[in-house]
């Protein structure tokens, strides 16, 4: 019986992955020490970060560079929705620094390809739809500042980041909202030709909405309505090596905007982030993760076979040497298998919307009240928000954000 503890150990090693860590962990699954967390909180306190943005800043400071862009994206959109423009710009620019970089995070990216390193330890740069969304939202912030040149640059860059696998060539650079907003920015810059070219490109997208109304130079209000929650990433596969998306749409299927004494205007369902996420095609990182999974399976099978061999050997007289060697190899193989980490990276820009609606309005100067209405598939009003704004005569564009 004394010999069987080897096999017990082998089985234990085979079944044990990483031990559950107690206390706070980063989005990458790393434990955050109390000292690191306390330092992050202190830094946030000293920087007088607004209360609504503190969770994002604390996470950013505590979790290190690999999750900087992740929390900056989440905090940036929160700040933009709350009207904290400077904070939104700062956070989006932090995220862009990492996303745009080809050199930064290279060592972590190389490490992430190894069998025993997790994919989620690389710098977070998001999936294509998250990178494109980052530039769409940064572009909106530039529109609010009336920096139409940089807004246009961001909308162009959103298309640049919408890359797809070789199996989904027709879906690259097909963000309808980016082209529509680019056209708006170009009109405000005084480049109608650029606007026309952008809309011409957009007309060829499979993602274009029906009866799309183009932006006009005289429009001075841009309404942006967000509905639902963006794609939720989850893991599947034998070793959680496959990343998939789950949709979290809103019941709102149509958005109208009313202004006192004016006819209602239908907002354009300009973008579905679910569609963008799920038309990306095959990722090269999937092949890397599949390779890790195959290696894990192979070493796991080897460990089981060796453990079985050790059991058989233990029943033979004078089989101690063989039992010891086989059990040792089984433990080693099981250890290697347990240490192999094929789990897909499912860190996500969790507070993105499911859909983005756009409407351009021409509103006379002075105080204005816009009533934004969200309807379900049956046409019933299920969401409503009144937006009071003031339109200045010399202001080329006011941007109004509504979250349903």
């Amino acid at each position, binding site marked *: 019986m004394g010999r069987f503890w080897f096999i017990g150990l082998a089985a234990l090693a085979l079944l044990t992955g990483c031990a559950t860590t107690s206390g706070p962990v980063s989005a990458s699954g790393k434990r955050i020490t109390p000292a690191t967390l306390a330092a992050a909180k202190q830094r946030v306190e000293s920087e007088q970060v607004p209360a609504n943005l503190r969770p994002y800043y604390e996470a950013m400071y505590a979790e290190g560079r690999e999750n900087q862009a992740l929390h900056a994206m989440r905090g940036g959109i929160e700040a933009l929705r709350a009207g904290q423009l400077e904070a939104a710009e700062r956070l989006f620019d932090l995220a862009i620094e990492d996303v745009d970089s080809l050199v930064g995070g290279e060592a972590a990216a190389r490490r992430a*390809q190894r069998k025993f390193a997790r994919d989620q330890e690389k710098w977070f740069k998001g999936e294509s739809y998250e990178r494109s969304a980052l530039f769409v939202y940064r572009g909106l912030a530039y529109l609010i500042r009336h920096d139409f040149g940089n807004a246009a640059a961001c909308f162009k860059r959103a298309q640049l980041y919408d890359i797809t696998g070789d199996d989904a060539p027709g879906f690259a650079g097909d963000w309808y909202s980016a082209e529509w907003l680019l056209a708006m920015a170009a009109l405000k810059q005084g480049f109608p030709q650029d606007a026309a070219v952008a809309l011409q490109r957009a007309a060829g997208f499979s993602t274009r909405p029906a009866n799309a109304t183009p932006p006009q130079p005289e429009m001075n209000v841009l309404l942006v309505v967000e509905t639902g929650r963006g794609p939720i990433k989850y893991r599947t596969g034998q070793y959680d090596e496959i990343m998939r998306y789950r949709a979290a749409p809103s019941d709102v299927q149509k958005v109208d905007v009313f202004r006192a004494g004016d006819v209602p205007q239908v907002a354009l369902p300009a973008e579905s982030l679910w569609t963008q996420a799920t038309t990306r095609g095959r990722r090269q990182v999937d092949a890397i993760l599949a390779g890790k999974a195959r290696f894990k399976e192979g070493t796991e099978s080897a460990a089981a076979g060796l453990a079985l061999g050790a059991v058989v050997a233990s029943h033979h007289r004078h089989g101690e040497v063989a039992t010891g060697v086989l059990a040792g190899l089984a433990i080693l193989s099981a250890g290697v298998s347990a240490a192999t980490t094929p789990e897909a990276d499912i860190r996500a820009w969790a507070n993105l919307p499911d859909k983005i609606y756009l409407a351009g309005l021409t509103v006379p100067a002075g105080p204005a009240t816009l009533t934004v209405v969200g309807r379900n598939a049956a046409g019933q009003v299920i969401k409503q928000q009144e937006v009071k704004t003031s339109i200045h005569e010399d202001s080329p564009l006011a941007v109004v954000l509504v979250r349903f």
Partner: protein
Amino acid sequence: MIMKAYPLFAIGLAFAMAGCATRAPQPQVKYVNPGAQGGVAGTGIESQDIGAAAQKAAASILALPQIGGAPNPPTILLTPVTNRSASPVDTELYTVKLRGILMQNTAGKVRFLARDVGWDTSKHEENLRAAGEVQPGVVRKAATYDYLLTAELRGISAATNKGRSEYFLVAFKLVDMHDILLWENQYEIKKEGNVSPVYR
């Protein structure tokens, strides 16, 4: 025999524990050369690109007889950099940088109008003087320019699931008060980079 198996067990355990519970990396700060390529370089336009283009432009402008050979230093108004590329840039920063480099390289042969710097303050002070709230001081007569220098950034960008390629054209134009184009020069920048397979 049992004792001999301990190292194997230890190795197995070490592998099993690898990758678990490590400390989050700490932020680091270091000084870097502002004219050098950044440690997080991408294919977008960067400060050193504008700086290099501005230096070439300054040398070229000084070679113009209307500028380099003028009896009195002509005054130039530098308009904000226009961005028509696919790379967002801090246009104000670039305008300031461009003016700084041009000033350094034209050493007293050209004067630059800085309306963005003192116009509002001087105008406010003029109103205070007119209202008698402050001493009258000298009569303000703001200078005008002889030439307008514009800078425009254009670009062509392409990306695949393997990498990115970006081409930028920085175009400078010097126009006189009669809208005559005195000088135009262009500087090209092209950058290419591969994306790590884990991000493809």
